[in-house]
């Protein structure tokens, strides 16, 4: 079903007391897209993700994820949506395989089925050799990759990644980005990437949305936004220039 909207938000608002974290957000993401969600710290990116996952209730507005309302039918959404939080945590006294198995059980995948899957996933994220080590001894990059494996075990249609490359070394960042890229290309998983590392977003995202102080100030393919905002005929614009322009105007 190419071209179907996997995320649909309309008039989505979240208020904490008098403070508005997300203001009247409207957003459509199509299946198979890699969407970059940009914005400075505290712009409401994580809050938006939480509302998409049904972990927090919107003050007003409508959300549909894969056709379900995450506040009303959270299980339907969570079955098909993976979420990798910023600085994901694990049960440090268990090894990688046990961590994955626990998540598999929560997704009601029988142990026999999950055992094979876990081997495949560990191979895919490059942790097969270290699978027997306790996760507490893992490096930041390994933890982040294990996080991806954990998200993939439920065979999601849509993955939310919250700052997936933050704190990784350049090599780790590259491996992470390649992994994300291949997920989208090979498995047709929709990726919703929240980040403020602009060069990385530029490398892998089809479209971007820029959120500043709770408002979505721009949305569209990077080139299109550049054309509109920077009047680009020049080849070498960066997302950073574009972003700073929006940021100064806001």
């Amino acid at each position: 079903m190419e071209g179907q909207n996997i995320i649909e938000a309309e008039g989505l608002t979240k208020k904490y007391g008098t403070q508005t974290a997300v203001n009247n957000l409207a957003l459509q993401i199509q299946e198979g897209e890699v969407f970059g969600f940009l914005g400075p710290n505290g712009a409401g990116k994580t809050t938006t993700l939480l509302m998409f996952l049904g972990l927090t209730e919107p003050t007003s507005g409508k959300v549909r994820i894969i056709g379900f309302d995450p506040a009303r039918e959270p299980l339907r959404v969570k079955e098909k949506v993976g979420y990798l939080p910023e600085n994901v945590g694990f049960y440090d006294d268990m090894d990688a395989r046990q961590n994955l198995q626990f998540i598999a059980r929560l997704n009601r995948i029988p142990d026999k089925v999950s055992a094979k899957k876990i081997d495949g996933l560990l191979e895919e994220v490059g942790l097969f050799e270290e699978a027997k080590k306790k996760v507490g001894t893992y490096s930041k990059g390994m933890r982040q990759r294990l996080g991806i494996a954990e998200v993939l075990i439920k065979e999601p249609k849509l993955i939310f990644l919250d700052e997936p490359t933050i704190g990784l070394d350049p090599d780790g960042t590259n491996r992470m980005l390649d992994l994300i890229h291949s997920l989208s290309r090979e498995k047709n998983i929709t990726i919703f990437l929240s980040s403020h590392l602009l060069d990385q977003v530029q490398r892998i995202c089809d479209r971007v949305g820029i959120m500043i102080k709770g408002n979505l100030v721009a949305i569209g393919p990077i080139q299109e936004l550049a054309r509109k905002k920077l009047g680009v005929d020049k080849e070498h614009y960066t997302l950073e220039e574009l972003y700073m322009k929006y940021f100064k105007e806001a």
Partner: protein
Amino acid sequence: MVGVIIASMVGMGIQEESKGMAKPTLLFLWLFTSTGKLFSFVQFIAFFGPLIGIFLGFDSINRERVSRTLSKLASQPIYRDSIINAKFLAGVTTIAIVLVGIVLIISGLGIRLIGVVPGSEEILRLVIYLIISILYISFWLGISIFFSVAFRSTATSALASLAIWIFFSFFVGLGAGFMADAVAPISQSGTNVDPNVLVRHEEVQRTVSYFSPMTLYNEATTTILDPTRKTTKGLVFMGPLERLSLSRFQNPLPLLQSLIIVAPYLISIVAITFLCFGVCYLVFMRQEIRTV
């Protein structure tokens, strides 16, 4: 460990005590209520049982929060309440296993030491005692889980739970005494104390001390395990004839009667346990789960 120590201590005590007795009734239950050299099993659980509950629960939610696994858990296809239900049920199961284990150890050693095999009524009383104890410790588990939901730091929740435990274990008892002295003072000098004042003093003291779940538990379990206790009241006025008949014909109460006496205590313990869990359920469901 604890079971073994108590069993041997009490067992030896009972052996000596029962030597002169012709036909001991419900001797087996003494294993649990008799104080031996230091304390009885019932007192031990009443005092340190809460610690087991607190220990099992104080870091249940906030450790997941600190290690950042809570948001991951919450994004799996499970209902959010199953997280807290599971935490509570896991604790209750552990408590049940521990208590049943200790009681079985004491019983086994006790049978060897005193050579008395429990009858059906004694076993029933023990089962009821176990149920009350599990509920009582679950109440403390609920308290500590509540603090682990409310506070972000595991140290804070542990200390808060311990503070509550100390408050109810020591200070409510003390406070009850002060309160009673203030409301209905008994004069120290006079030899003839007005019985009405005495009764009132006693009533106030009891009413206040009932705010402590520990008192509720103590009264309930000692009555259940000691069939010769006919009332939970500490102060009973008796004429000389009544006293005589009581000492001559002291028969144990049937189980049902003991149960009726402690019914209000049981209901209170059940109520506070559920109330406590209910509150922490509500708080947890309304909390926002964030990684930051």
